[in-house]
């Protein structure tokens, strides 16, 4: 489940060569971007900016567009959960008129997603659970982006002994067995961060997952710092800080965005795994992984399929969207690649 074990999700770049049998059956596909570039060059109507290129390319990637919409929906639900009319308190077992707890109710018109083992409304737990899970994942993504970019940039830009030191440390972190180490650390953090599980999980996952990004950023910086425009900036008297933030970092931003996006998916899955083993978010606070784990046991032992299907469905849909989005971003942000319609 580690990031580096995850193979590149994109296919090999399509170089416009015919793939099957004959060589020149079909002419290489002309892609939209080149047309746009030609138009801009020839007629000089409107310059094609990076942002515009990105927008054009990204909007061609229909699955990624859909994924972005799904993700936005999930995030909005999580943020505005308090304002959704009719949503119940997710940590409050529900009783009927006779004062009995509504345990393990199958989905019906009143409880769309049914109720769980102690009579809590699943729909509101899934929505509020999204808040917890997305918080953990978002924070993790932010931590990975900050640690990975900072260390990778320092290593790649300055080189020498500091590069060596940072990269050996990165190798060390990357070669740790992820899940066993995460479990031990989670057991420790569980005591240290009583009640702030989302934060402690994000710190834990963030400090284990930054290695891949640090390597990528270092490689980018290594090649960028030798480029002419950096040399020109230096000759013009720019300080290191200006060169890094103004000239190098903007050119290395795409892999950072892509990696941070994909890490969010990994974080949601890992949070689920840790919750399943009892080292994640603890009840009554809802979180998708923990609900799916509880619900799975309920489904296997008591046939309550809805307890597994809805939380894990929300989780899978979100991670799937994150992965499609990451894939689409990778295609759209890399201007050297031509893109085929998906």
């Amino acid at each position, binding site marked *: 489940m580690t990031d580096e074990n995850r193979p590149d*999700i994109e296919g090999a770049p399509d170089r416009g060569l015919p793939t099957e049998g004959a060589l020149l059956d079909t002419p290489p596909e002309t892609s939209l971007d080149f047309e746009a570039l030609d138009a801009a060059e020839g007629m000089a109507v409107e310059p094609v900016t990076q942002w515009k290129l990105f927008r054009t390319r990204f909007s061609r990637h229909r699955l990624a567009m859909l994924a972005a919409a799904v993700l936005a929906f999930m995030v909005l639900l999580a943020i505005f959960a308090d304002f959704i009319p009719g949503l119940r308190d997710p940590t409050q077992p529900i009783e009927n008129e006779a004062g009995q707890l509504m345990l393990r109710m199958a989905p019906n018109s009143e409880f769309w997603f049914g109720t769980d083992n102690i009579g809590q409304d699943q729909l509101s737990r899934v929505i509020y659970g999204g808040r917890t899970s997305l918080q953990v994942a978002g924070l993790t993504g932010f931590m990975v982006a900050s640690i990975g970019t900072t260390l990778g940039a320092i290593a790649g830009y300055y080189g020498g002994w500091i590069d060596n030191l940072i990269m050996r440390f990165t190798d*060390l972190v990357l070669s740790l067995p992820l899940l066993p180490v995460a479990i*031990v650390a989670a057991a420790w953090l569980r*005591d240290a961060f009583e009640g702030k599980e989302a934060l402690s999980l994000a710190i834990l996952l963030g400090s284990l997952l930054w290695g891949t990004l640090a390597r990528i950023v270092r490689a980018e910086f290594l090649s960028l710092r030798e480029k002419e425009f950096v040399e020109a900036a230096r000759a013009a008297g720019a300080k290191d800080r200006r060169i890094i933030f103004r000239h190098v970092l903007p050119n290395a931003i795409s892999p950072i965005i892509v990696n941070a996006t994909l890490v969010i*998916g990994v974080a949601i899955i890992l949070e689920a795994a840790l919750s399943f083993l009892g080292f994640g978010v603890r009840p009554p606070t809802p979180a998708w*992984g923990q609900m799916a784990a509880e619900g799975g046991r309920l489904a296997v032992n008591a046939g309550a399929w809805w307890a597994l299907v809805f939380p*894990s469905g929300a989780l899978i849909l979100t991670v799937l969207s994150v*992965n499609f989005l990451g894939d689409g971003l990778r295609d759209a942000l890399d201007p050297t690649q031509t893109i085929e319609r998906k």
Partner: protein
Amino acid sequence: MFNYVIRRLVYGLITVFALSIIVFWLLQSTGGDPLDRLKANPRITQETVRQMSEFYGLDQPVWRQYLTWLWGFVRLDWGRSFTGVDMVRDLVFERLGGTLRLMMTALGIAVLVGIPLGIYQALKQYSFFDQAGTFFSFVTFSTPIFVLGMLLQIIFALYLEKWTGVKFFWTSGMNSTNYSNLSFFAKIGDTLQHLVLPALSIALISIAGYSRYQRAAMLEVMHSDYLRTARAKGLSRRTVITKHALRNALIPIVTLVSLDIAGVIGGAVITETIFGWPGIGRLYIDAINLNNWPVVMAVVMSIAIMVVVMNLLADLTYGWLDPRVRYD
């Protein structure tokens, strides 16, 4: 080459050493004493507890305990489990057998299904089959392994039995309780009935990874210059694919599979918990919950050493298969 191996081993040793310090420290500073359960027992006197502490060396300062543990570990004397009289080394090696059986089966299935799947997808790029395979991979990637395992249990154990009235698969344990009385073929059957579902739940995730990776590798080779040359000189499509493309496209997957072995052992924690499989993963979780740190240390070290060795083997195999790779 020789220098390269030595250097990698030294780095590996440092990694394992650093990990042992971190994990030892984390375990020691986590609240709770391994002897808490004993202390809570009213029939056990203060004197006994004191003697036990002394016996396990718990009265020593932490650094001292660590050094004692380290010295024992390198001499393959991994101490005693706090929960009984078991020697930790025997316990770990016994459970390792269970994990290896599960892992090897899963990897076997994943390699046999995932790699051909990826190759076929690449040959039929953008066909319906290719798109469906891609979608399957993405969905499997995005599913936590415990959800997969539970779905398999529900579909192939609970419902299949309900519908057909025959018990095809077991959802817990490695063998039935009457295993020793069974005939030879019944033994094989019983083993398979227990093995298939947990192995499949691990294999599905790896199949998704391998097929995706193999597809990309195959496409890259199919676009290479030497393959265009092979086509241009008039070789048949079959020869081009089997003699020229396949051989080169299979190299990168070797790395992925060897790296995956380490990941699968770590991930076994979850599968073993769902399927009640007696392997090191479950041993690990139980030990952490009981603060049984000699066992936790032993399992974490075994996994870390396997990771280091597999990483090195992956790089060496790659170099052996692809003569363009240089070690320096």
